[in-house]
């Protein structure tokens, strides 16, 4: 399947080297010295800055947490309160990513396939969560969905409380995650070739069957990537959530807030322990996203 496509430098380098290469003469580590100068300097600057700004400070979390004994670590990172915070954080991020998964597909479909007045504005607005400071989103959402807010006042008579509880957390994470799904799906949906759809239609498939059996499966990997990106961002989100969450221990307290509470009590090692759990999840998500993308490349 891959062979139908012209080989680009990227697909070649992305393929695993055949094992026979090991038996031949060893290839030099730097296959060919590029004619373009500046490699040593720019790579040196890149690695230095990356280490100083990102890698060494990040290692401080693990080093600080390792000052705790295993018992203390478990007590800090997996206390009842912390477990409740993880449940809320991961649960709300998951539900928000699912809702964004549904409306993200519809939004992308409308933007790619349909013409309607105000489309350019809608297209630009989808990126609002990237451009709007999270604290601003937080106070705006809290004001809207509070019991006396523009939206909240219509929910209260229905017995729905949308702010200062896990529903509020989920609403904030829907706001934060939407563009991840739309912007990941968009290029893939745009590149879907019309021939396959026409072929399906000419063979007698109705529109629903074409969408369900041809289009949606083709979007699968991109959808999963967008879902994972939205979920990962939601797990770490702080600014937009704390204003609408209510921040009640065991009920509506998110994990990042718990880190801040530990810091304010000068329990640095405990804060590092919770942070280490969250970093572990972040790395796991990064691996999952990379795996999905590597897997999806096999089907392109």
């Amino acid at each position, binding site marked *: 399947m891959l062979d139908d496509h012209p080989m680009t430098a990227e697909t070649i380098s992305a393929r695993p080297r055949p094992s026979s290469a090991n038996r031949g003469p060893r290839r030099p580590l730097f296959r060919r010295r590029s004619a373009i*100068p500046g490699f040593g300097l*720019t790579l040196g600057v890149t690695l230095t800055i990356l280490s100083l700004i*990102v890698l060494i400070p990040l290692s401080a979390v693990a080093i600080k947490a390792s000052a705790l004994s295993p018992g203390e670590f478990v007590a800090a990172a997996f206390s009842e309160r912390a477990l409740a915070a993880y449940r809320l954080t991961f649960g709300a991020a998951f539900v928000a990513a699912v809702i964004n998964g549904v409306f993200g597909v519809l939004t992308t479909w409308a933007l790619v396939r349909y013409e309607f007045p105000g489309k350019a504005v809608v297209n630009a607005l989808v990126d609002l969560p*990237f451009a709007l400071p*999270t*604290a601003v989103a937080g106070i705006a959402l809290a004001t809207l969905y509070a019991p006396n807010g523009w939206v909240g006042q219509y929910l209260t008579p229905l017995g729905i409380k949308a702010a200062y509880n896990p529903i509020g957390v989920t609403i904030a994470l829907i706001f934060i995650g939407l563009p991840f799904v739309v912007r990941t799906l968009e290029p893939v949906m745009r590149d879907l070739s019309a021939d396959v759809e026409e072929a399906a239609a000419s063979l007698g498939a109705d529109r629903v069957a074409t969408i369900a059996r041809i289009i949606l499966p083709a979007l699968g990997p991109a959808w999963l990537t967008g879902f994972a990106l939205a979920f990962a961002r939601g797990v*770490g989100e*702080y600014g937009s959530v704390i204003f609408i969450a209510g921040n009640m221990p065991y009920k509506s307290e998110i994990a990042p807030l718990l*880190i801040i509470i530990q810091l304010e009590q000068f329990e640095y090692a405990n804060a590092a322990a919770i942070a280490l759990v969250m970093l572990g999840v972040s790395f796991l998500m990064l691996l999952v996203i990379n795996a999905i993308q590597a897997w999806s490349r096999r089907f392109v």
Partner: protein
Amino acid sequence: MAAPTKAQFRHPTDDPAWAKAVVIGLVLAFLGLVLILPLAAVFAEALRKGLAPAIEAISTPDAWAAIKLTLITAGIAVPFNAVFGLCAAWAIAKHEFPGKPLLITLIDLPFSVSPVVAGLIYVLVFGLQGWFGDRLVDHDVKIIFAVPGIVLATIFVTFPFIARELIPLMQEQGVSEEEAAVSMGASGLYTFWRVTAPNVRWGLLYGVLLCNARAMGEFGAVSVVSGHIRGLTNTMPLHVEILYNEYDFVAAFAVAALLCLLAIVTLVLKSLLEIAQPDVKRGGGH
């Protein structure tokens, strides 16, 4: 029987009109609820008591200090990340070396780290109980609960923005133009300025735009390292939080409205750039 309508002759890959209407309606309702209403609410709350109190709220000395600090922070973080992005993209896109995918993943790493953890790491390194805590106290250097900490945390959360715009763009453009320039005797720097820079300037601008929006708006990371000292270590988003928690809603939303204007300007410039230079849009989430 009614005359056949246009819908009956639609192209097989086109959706029926009713389906279009339903999808567009659902999308607009959803986006209205999630995106447009919050934006409208900020301006409505800011202007609840008229324009004068809102303007007064953003002209207090504390608000001015917050605006100034936000501009200084972005003014350092964005150029820093631009230089880093150009270096990283030059090394990665124009040369071959082992471990490249790992390096790209590591550059992207700050995107997957919670902003609160981003702030925490600098407290662990430079805070009083941190690695360099004692030495910094001895030399009377304050990083945490001071401006340098805010700048560092902002650099961390905006770290990948410009690099990840430039790397795929420069990879796509290949090396032939640079090789031609170098083979004719141009120096590396000259090649960069005269060949590479003109090719990537729009992508660079696109990355700078997104990086700047996040740098000015960052809340979680900055909140951990700032110490919330009014007039000294408060950025605009932190100032919004303080005013909001003091129930000074008009003032909080007035400062928030300023940040909304920043977001709207960013989105307009970004859209214009995407229309004028379709190449800059790389797709994929940030």
